């Protein structure tokens, strides 16, 4: 199995990478960890004229806290994010979700930015980004711009990045006291792509739900906020009845699609179950661990 021929570039900065993107006008692809892109190249699903390898852009693999944001460079390896103490302290949901992304060998190479920019409809990280309200920082020939996670994901394998832009870093709001999180998914094998996955952020005050964000993947071409469930939770006590009602509402307004191994009926059945599980998990975590 061979990819078709391409020109190869290995720039050492984002600026240099963007220059090459501009030159190729959409005919070049950025290579991050390669765990999703290279299979597409090997099968010749895609045949780009050029590959721009970001693996030598060492300014893009930093993990830092910048005020109220946790900033992850686009080339931060998933395994590095998983074991980072800064990430665990600032955004424990990222730490929790990492093992779901793939086996450790894949996470050794796979990157945060690569997974987000690839925007597979059943990838886990986009759900996490939407639930946390992450900000994507794009770099293009005219400088940088910020895109909210909601607006970043457009459809399956499609983001709102233009052909001459790259994802430079991702800013996640640093979580504060009282916030609780959960990530749950249904999948054939633990590390496979999700059939359906749910990421949850919850703020409880005196056991009442003050804020909730529930993002699901595997139920449409991009990560989807389950707004009906969210609306019925906010302001109410998070008891078993409220959880059940919210779970039942999760399927409202969603047109489930069938795929060979995942009929629409299965997705419709499993989504409320996952929502219920996520709410139970986050709701039962203690105040101390729920930070």
């Amino acid at each position, binding site marked *: 199995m061979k990819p078709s021929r391409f020109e190869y570039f290995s720039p050492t900065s984002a600026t240099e990478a963007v220059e090459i993107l501009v030159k190729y006008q959409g005919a070049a692809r950025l290579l991050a960890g390669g*765990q999703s892109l290279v299979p597409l190249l090997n099968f010749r699903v895609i045949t780009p004229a050029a590959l721009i*390898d970001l693996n030598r852009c060492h300014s893009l693999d930093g993990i830092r806290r910048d005020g109220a944001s946790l900033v992850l460079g686009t080339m931060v390896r998933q395994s590095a994010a998983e074991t980072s103490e800064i990430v665990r302290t600032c955004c424990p949901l990222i730490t929790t979700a990492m093992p779901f992304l793939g086996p450790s*060998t894949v996470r050794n*190479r796979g990157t945060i930015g690569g997974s987000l920019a690839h925007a597979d409809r059943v990838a886990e990280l986009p759900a996490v980004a939407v639930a946390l309200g992450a900000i994507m920082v794009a770099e293009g020939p005219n400088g940088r711009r910020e895109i909210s996670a909601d607006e970043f994901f457009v459809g399956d394998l499609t983001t709102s990045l233009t052909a001459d832009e790259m994802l430079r870093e991702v800013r996640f709001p640093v979580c504060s006291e009282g916030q609780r999180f959960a990530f749950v998914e249904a999948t054939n094998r633990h590390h496979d792509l999700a059939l359906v996955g749910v990421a949850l952020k919850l703020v409880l005050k005196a056991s009442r739900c003050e804020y909730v964000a529930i993002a699901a993947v595997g139920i449409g071409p991009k990560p989807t906020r389950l707004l009906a469930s969210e609306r019925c939770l906010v302001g109410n006590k998070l008891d078993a009845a409220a959880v059940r009602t919210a779970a039942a509402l999760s399927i409202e307004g969603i047109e489930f699609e069938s795929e060979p191994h995942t009929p629409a009926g299965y997705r419709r059945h499993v989504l409320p179950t996952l929502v219920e599980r996520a709410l139970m998990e986050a709701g039962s975590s203690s105040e101390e661990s729920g930070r």
Partner: protein
Amino acid sequence: MPQRHKIELTVNGKKLQRHVEPRLLLCDFLRYELRLTGTHVGCAHGVCGACTVLFNGSTARSCLTFAVQADGAVIETVESLAARGPLSPIQRAFYEHHALQCGFCTPGFLMSTRELLTHHPDPSEETVRMALRGHICRCTGYVNIVRAVRAAARKLREEGLGRDSEP
């Protein structure tokens, strides 16, 4: 003719210099250019784990890596485990516990086991299964593989090979 790129890398302790076409996958470079045929290619799209090698000390799928990306890297393949010598403790444990039958997937399992035991000298069954979940074996049913890995870990601990030594 496509442009060829010069790469310098270390493979199994040996420094090498080659010129490669960018689309040449690392697995094919190892097998066809260096004749290191111990690295097996099962699926060639990152699902089966047979082609796993160590890339700067961490496991990587050589079918999802281009040889040109290995410029400056240190690569270790299954041939590094027991270069013409007796079997390494991990290999011996696989042999003794019948952890392979046809052996096609084994090179990948061995490399991931080596990475695992470097970080976890005494892994639980759960830890072993999590570490090896990216590998597919169609012969053994995995039970003997898990036994072999834990036996290798025991053996290495008895021999006093600690965290920093190479399993």
